């Protein structure tokens, strides 16, 4: 594995967002050509067992580390999400699940390692945890869903009638027709989550990242939203979701990534969700260890590469 410590000082460089291409195995190489010092990034994705499977990688993580105050929330993660895959990210609290999604969309700086994407940034949709959205904001349901068109319509382009039709259709498919003029502040948490799914529908993204999408949502709504997730999977979109309900993972998600700051297991769900693996994940120490030694894995890797 090759990468360069100097670049760790400017972490944003490491987000390679390659423009779209037909089959995106080539996209990785493209990113490597752009990011200096990453010539080997495309080759070094063999860490995760899924990365070795047939099919193209949508996202490749190369020895990714993300830390808060020098304590790693994600520690040397390598592997890849295949194009069109549907993966559940599972693990105990503090395992780095949300951190993983945030570093994939590029709102968190990486401490070291690289994320390479075979999709342009405006084709990525990200649904943060429900608590991160201010529901007292004076905006209607319709306008909230309309914001999903930002990557195509941008700050100034006109909202066509056809676009309005798409928004109404999206609201219809989450069962919220007639809610268009309601302020979002008047919705229940479950209804708000359905609005956010309508916005995801309108975004028409190739890569969809969901952070605990079914928290505080009743069973009926969860089933309806899961149907949408399945529909996206059927449309060959890549979906990665942080999920807590183990039964749900087994039933709906073909692949799973079990995290406990490090990858515990990453493969077909049946292989990942074993009692032994889950026990290993649960035994992760949640507290930071202020006396912990510095991690030198990176230095060793750099030494090998040199």
């Amino acid at each position, binding site marked *: 594995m090759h990468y360069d410590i100097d670049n760790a000082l400017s972490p944003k460089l490491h987000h390679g*967002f390659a423009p779209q291409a037909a089959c995106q195995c080539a996209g990785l190489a493209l990113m490597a050509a752009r990011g200096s010092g990453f010539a080997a990034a495309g080759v070094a994705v063999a860490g995760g067992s899924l990365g070795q499977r047939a099919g193209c990688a949508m996202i490749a993580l190369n020895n990714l580390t993300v830390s808060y105050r020098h304590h790693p929330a994600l520690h040397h993660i390598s592997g890849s999400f295949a194009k069109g895959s549907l993966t559940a990210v599972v693990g105990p609290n503090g395992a780095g699940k949300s951190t993983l999604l945030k570093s994939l*969309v*590029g*709102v968190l700086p990486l401490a070291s390692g690289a994320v390479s994407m075979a999709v342009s*940034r*405006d084709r*990525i949709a*990200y649904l*943060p945890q429900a608590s*991160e*959205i*201010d529901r007292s*904001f*004076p*905006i*209607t349901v319709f*306008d*909230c869903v309309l*914001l999903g068109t*930002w*990557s195509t319509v941008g*700050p*100034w382009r006109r909202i066509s009638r056809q676009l309005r039709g798409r928004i109404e259709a999206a609201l219809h498919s989450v069962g919220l027709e007639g809610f268009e003029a309601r*302020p979002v*502040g*008047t919705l229940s948490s479950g209804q708000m989550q359905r609005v956010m799914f309508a916005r995801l529908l309108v975004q028409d993204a190739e890569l969809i990242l969901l952070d605990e999408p079914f928290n505080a949502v009743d069973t009926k709504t969860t089933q309806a939203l899961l149907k949408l997730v399945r529909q996206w999977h059927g449309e060959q979109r890549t979906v990665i979701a942080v999920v807590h309900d183990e039964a749900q993972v087994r039933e709906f998600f073909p692949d799973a990534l079990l995290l406990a700051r490090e990858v515990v297991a990453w493969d077909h769900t049946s292989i990942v969700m074993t009692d032994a693996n889950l026990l290993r994940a649960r035994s992760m120490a949640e507290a930071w260890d202020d006396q912990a030694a510095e991690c030198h894995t990176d230095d060793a890797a750099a030494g090998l590469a040199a």
Partner: protein
Amino acid sequence: MSDEIQSLWGLLADPFIEFSFMRRALVATLALSLSSAPLGIFLTLRRMSLLGDALSHAILPGVAIGFMLFGVSLSAMTIGGVLGGLIVVGLAGLVSRSTVLKEDASLAAIYLVALALGITLISAQGTQLDLLHILFGSALGVDSPGLNLVAGVASASVIALAVLYRGLVLESFDPVYLAASGRRSWVWQQGFLMLVVVNLVAGFQTMGTLMAVGLMMLPAVSARLWHDGLPAQLLNASVQAMLAGLSGLLLSYYFNTPSGPTIIGCAGVLYLLSLLLAPGGWIQGLLPQKHRVA
């Protein structure tokens, strides 16, 4: 009957017909109401209601340097104030993007330093009173260049607000979504804060700090009590600010009170009325509530 209407009209219009300083004060107040009250709404939506106050202090060193270099010159002090404000806003933005501090915390730190610097600079000059008088101008002292400044800034910022509107709404409502979509999301926040700075400097220079911050924040806070939708809130805030401006000027004329505090007092009365009467207000809460079957 028509005599009474005549005399009422006279009461309302005569001060403005007779005195040009009253006319200038009215136009300047209305212009400032139109542009800065909507900015106040966006500030409250971002939970930055106290930012106006902080920024009006941050402007001080720029104004003082303009005064030291060019003397009592409105344009020099305005340019100094705007530059000072923009530097403070830019620095605060940079700090909040590159460290763990949030925007309001970094701004609080930087504006205090700027205020200290401003006071030191002013004290170094002999003519303190002179400068302080200019710094805290009054609505009735608006001259032609001052009026042009306020009108120009108001026109420019109403247009800028219209141009930035969609991005500003998205950035205030769901900043993570905007950041995830790439494309320099901080541009919106910085552009918005620049508008706030320019409006504050214009109001501050011509009518004083109380007027500048008061007309920006008070109507905005009470407008939010009235409507669920953002466009209605923006309009309501401007109208309330204008009402306060008009009635405040008239009251200060007839009762010989200082204009700035009277105008802000009127805005305060409108706030109190909004608290009592608005759909989200106290009286609505006390009345027995009827509800529909579904």
